[in-house]
């Protein structure tokens, strides 16, 4: 049995970005968020579903998210929403992500920004 790593190394920061983006659309609780991530990414990203909770708790401590106990679907659940500070952080993260993706794509397509000097 292959146990999924909760947060593969190359995905560092990605769950956080997705959580902020999805929560900026509407408040959600944990399970709902996981399903939204799967739906939004077409199931491409595989991660242990539990890994989002420690991230959510950290983001809440940092004031990026706010959490409140609310009755949803007949059960009391912790519902998360993005704070104004979180919206600001999301904008910065999206901008940084787009720069990184652009740079990696550029490199993968064989692009070179500058040719390193060769030792003669």
């Amino acid at each position, binding site marked *: *049995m*292959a*146990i*999924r*790593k*909760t*947060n593969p190394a190359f995905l560092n920061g990605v769950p956080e970005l997705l959580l902020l983006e999805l929560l900026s659309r509407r408040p959600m*609780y*944990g*399970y709902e968020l*996981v399903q939204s991530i799967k739906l939004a990414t077409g199931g491409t990203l595989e*991660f*242990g*579903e*539990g*890994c989002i*909770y*420690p*991230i959510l*708790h*950290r983001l809440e*401590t*940092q004031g990026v998210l706010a959490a409140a106990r609310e009755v949803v679907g007949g*059960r009391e*659940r*912790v519902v998360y929403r993005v704070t104004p500070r979180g919206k600001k952080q999301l904008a910065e993260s999206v901008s940084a992500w787009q720069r990184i993706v652009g740079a990696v794509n550029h490199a993968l397509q064989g692009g070179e920004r500058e040719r390193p000097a060769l030792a003669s």
Partner: protein
Amino acid sequence: MNAQRWLLELRAELVRRKLPPLYVERMVGEMEDHIVQLQKETVMGSKGSDRLSEQLGSPRQLAHDARRELDGSYFARRHPLLVFLAMPTLLLPLLTALLLLSFTFVGSWFVGTSLGYLNSSQGFCFALWGFAFIVPTTLLALAFGRSARRAGLHWCWPLARISHHVD
């Protein structure tokens, strides 16, 4: 029962990593809710805790992540020596000096009034020095104690941290 076993394992791992009790309760509560929903919407209910570990991550890994995220959340956890050693060491004399200065200022105002005799009384000076030491000490102890409690740090945490580094 397998979900219960998984949750018990998670709780044990979280406790083993000395996460704050409130955090443990919340994490376990949210995971329980997640599992209930998962079992409702899929047919994994009877497949056991291994299947849950596959879906959610192993309790050990989750507790490890929780510990790491919690450590990263608080300035006090990232820079404990600065917060609990350097800051009180600097702040205590500073606050004491400020308090003494303000007392001196107020005292100098009293001189020339009918209460001026208080300034020269030995008892008053003794009380003033005591007050100037006790008030900042109490305030700092309360402030840093609250900070440590919020960050989920145990009183013997510095010793644990040192032994962790030694290991």
